[in-house]
């Protein structure tokens, strides 16, 4: 037994049908579950040129391989589809309880195609699958809809249902909308909410209670116990947060050192991700004034965003399923300025940065309100913040007039105007409507493209590549561009990947300037980061587990125990590489040109900033991205014209012993191999395997599956 259910649920909203489909074990061997399974399925089944908001697009929800095995920090669910924001691969991930809920219905993933005629929600309790009328919930914000569904289903299901739903932003097809669960935790990126809205699917409600399989639960439990025991002891003296801003200022000037990643756990346990805000302001990590400012522009703002302010109003920690760390929290915001609500999830760093320093907004209270508003609406705070920043800069420079902004005085740090604008974006009213599809669309309509910070159509996460050039590589090279959760130098130094992967370079003490190099060594670091992140996503792991390092969160040991395998780190990194390659292939199939993606000049340091920790830095981003591709063995030209295979190995056939059994073609996870080559076997006419698409990912599954040793894997020329 492994940890996979071996089944996926396929739903067609147009035909109002659903079927359970078995997945061959080779697929799991090749790509695990989670994002890997989604990449495998979507690459195959979304036709080239599909309209992201049309019936051909498929919306996928998946749990990771380790979800439900007892492994810690493996409760993340991933949603994937063709992104309406970028036109290429789209995905977003989120915590909460939805990942185990998928598995408890008996599936590793749910794939939804078609478009419903009227608003519906998908209900599954592990026995039956139904599409139910959702007209009573359409129009409600995500938190209210979840509450209403819980109320209406109370007593009807034996198990309390888990709800993933969209808010008004997704219903109104905002291209920067996401999908929510657990009262406003949101899988925010890539416009996944608009895809759900276009399908008229308000919610997915899961109430299954099946056991979740695992090969060796005792070993998994022992690994978790060891980690849990350590984490329990990780507490910091109260009040230390006030020094973080000063620490960041120091860090901006020190060389980078490999750290013990476990120490990040102290920060996440004590404060959550918001601990990073004051650090980011002073160190150069956090963008200021629409990526064009320096700490001088917001002098002492780190005091306002000091993490202790938020800790003081935290009423409880919030843990995703299977997480002993608990970086989340619930805040009591009753009676605070601007607050219309009593409670909110602790805002993440990304949200605070995007509506604080990025807009030169000094009001922490306004951020609680914005956080709750956007979470309820189901709108991505990163994209919304970048879009508002563009609007402000356009207004300040006369590109937008007061008439165009519906009378809003969009000056830097004008908290009232920022709040009003966000409300209008959510309601899609007036000027808010015009910019509710993100900064790329907004700047195409109104101008001010030089102020529009997006990469390949998606607004970037709140970490500055001029501070950590590795981020810039992933912003551009990642198949869902603009993501900040694929790799950074500082994390690489903390993860000790070299201890599990033979080709991952050791992290060493180095000066910041060294990170600007486009050497193969740097490229192997960015490749290792990307491969490991994909592996973690296939396992359903949390980025913060990953950051603790391989000696703390023992992913390789976890996977071997949960699946009954005996693979080493190199083998698992190859799985990560395969997932990343499949996502890239998806883009090529969809006509998204990865070679055309660029960092905006400003983000690349053209021209460089005149002062502060990032003074004088200009990235060599294009060279670094080219080296990254080279490290992956991806051929730039063949890739971009779709005429190549992107593999480093390919199958070659010695047909003599071939018995035409078809096992190899069935084993191929991407259907690159077909039984279509006509020939003779002895005196009989027969068919033999051959490559039938450009999609071979070089995984070798065909060679492993063939009982007659017909196939060997050869290095590409």
């Amino acid at each position: 037994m492994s940890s996979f259910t071996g089944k996926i649920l396929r739903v067609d909203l147009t035909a109002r049908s659903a079927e359970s489909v078995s997945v061959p074990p080779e697929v799991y061997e090749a790509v695990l579950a989670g994002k890997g399974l989604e990449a495998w399925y979507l690459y195959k089944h979304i036709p080239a040129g599909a309209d992201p908001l049309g019936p051909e697009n498929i919306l996928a929800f998946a749990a990771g391989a380790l979800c439900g095995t007892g492994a810690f920090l493996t409760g993340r669910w991933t949603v994937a589809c063709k992104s309406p924001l970028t036109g290429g691969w789209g995905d977003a991930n989120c915590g909460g309880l939805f990942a185990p809920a998928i598995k408890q219905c008996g599936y590793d993933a749910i794939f939804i195609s078609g478009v419903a005629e009227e608003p519906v929600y998908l209900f599954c309790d592990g026995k039956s699958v139904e599409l139910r009328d959702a007209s009573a919930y359409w129009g409600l914000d995500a938190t209210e809809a979840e509450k209403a569904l819980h109320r209406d289903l109370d007593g009807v299901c034996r198990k309390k249902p888990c709800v993933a739903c969209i808010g008004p932003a997704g219903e109104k097809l905002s291209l920067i909308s996401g999908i929510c669960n657990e009262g406003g935790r949101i899988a925010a990126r890539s416009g996944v909410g608009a895809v759900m809205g276009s399908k008229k699917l308000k919610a997915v409600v899961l109430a299954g209670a099946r056991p979740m399989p695992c090969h060796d639960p005792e070993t998994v439990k022992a690994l978790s116990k060891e980690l849990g025991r350590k984490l329990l002891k990780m507490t910091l003296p109260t009040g230390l947060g006030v020094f973080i801003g000063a620490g960041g200022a120091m860090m901006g000037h020190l060389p980078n050192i490999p750290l013990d990643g476990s120490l990040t756990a102290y920060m996440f346990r004590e404060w959550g991700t918001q601990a990073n805000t004051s650090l980011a302001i002073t160190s150069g990590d956090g963008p200021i004034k629409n990526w064009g400012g320096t700490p001088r522009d917001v002098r002492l703002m780190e005091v306002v965003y000091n993490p202790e302010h938020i800790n003081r109003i935290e009423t409880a920690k919030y843990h995703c399923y299977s997480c002993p760390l608990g970086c989340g929290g619930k805040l009591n915001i009753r009676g605070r300025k601007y607050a219309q609500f009593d409670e909110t999830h602790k805002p993440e760093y990304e949200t605070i940065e995007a509506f604080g320093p990025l807009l030169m907004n000094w009001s922490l209270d306004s951020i609680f309100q914005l956080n709750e508003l956007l979470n309820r609406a189901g709108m991505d705070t990163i994209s919304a913040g970048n879009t508002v920043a563009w609007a402000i800069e356009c207004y300040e420079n006369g590109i937008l007039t007061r008439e165009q902004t519906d009378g809003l005085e969009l000056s830097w740090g004008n908290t009232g105007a920022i709040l009003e604008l966000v409300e209008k974006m959510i309601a899609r009213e007036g000027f808010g409507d015009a910019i509710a599809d993100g900064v790329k669309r907004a700047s195409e309509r109104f101008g001010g493209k030089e102020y529009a910070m997006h990469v390949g159509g998606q607004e970037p996460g709140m970490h500055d590549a001029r501070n950590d050039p590795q981020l810039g590589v992933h912003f551009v090279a990642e198949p869902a561009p603009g993501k900040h959760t694929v790799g950074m130098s500082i994390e690489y130094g903390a993860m000790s990947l070299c201890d599990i992967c033979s080709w991952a370079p050791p992290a060493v003490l180095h000066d910041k300037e060294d990170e600007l190099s486009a050497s193969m060594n740097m490229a192997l670091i960015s490749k290792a980061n990307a491969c490991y992140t994909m592996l973690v996503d296939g396992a359903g792991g949390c980025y913060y587990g990953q950051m603790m390092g391989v000696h703390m969160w023992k992913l390789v040991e976890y996977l071997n125990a949960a699946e009954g395998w005996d693979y080493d780190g190199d083998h698992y990194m190859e799985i990560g590489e395969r997932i990343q390659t499949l996502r890239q292939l998806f883009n090529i199939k969809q006509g998204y040109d990865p070679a055309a993606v660029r960092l905006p000049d400003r983000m690349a340091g053209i021209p460089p900033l005149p002062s502060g920790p990032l003074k004088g830095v200009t990235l060599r981003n294009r060279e670094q991205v080219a080296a990254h591709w080279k490290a992956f063995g991806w051929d730039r030209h063949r890739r971009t014209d779709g005429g190549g295979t992107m593999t480093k190995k390919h199958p070659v056939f010695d047909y003599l012993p071939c018995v035409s059994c078809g096992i190899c073609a069935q084993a191929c996870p991407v259907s690159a191999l077909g039984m279509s080559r006509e020939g003779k076997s002895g005196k009989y006419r027969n068919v033999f395997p051959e490559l039938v698409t450009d999609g071979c990912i070089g995984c070798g599954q065909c060679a492993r599956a063939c009982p007659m040793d017909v196939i060997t894997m050869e290095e590409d020329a």
Partner: protein
Amino acid sequence: MRVKILPPHGCDRNALDARSWAELPEGIRVRDALRLIRCGPLKAKLLLMSVNGERCTPERELHDGDVVGFFFPVSGG
């Protein structure tokens, strides 16, 4: 035995290999590791230290495969 040591800023790494591992005799403690990386007593007082992610004191004994981390609370991790 082999131990991985991740020193804070301003310490000496000469005793460590490229992957930050050091070959050390059995029975040594965290305080010996501090000496190895030339971390002065004053600095050592300010540091949080951990072995395999577990907070510890300088008296903690080390074993083969241990990972020793140090962390200035003010350096922000």
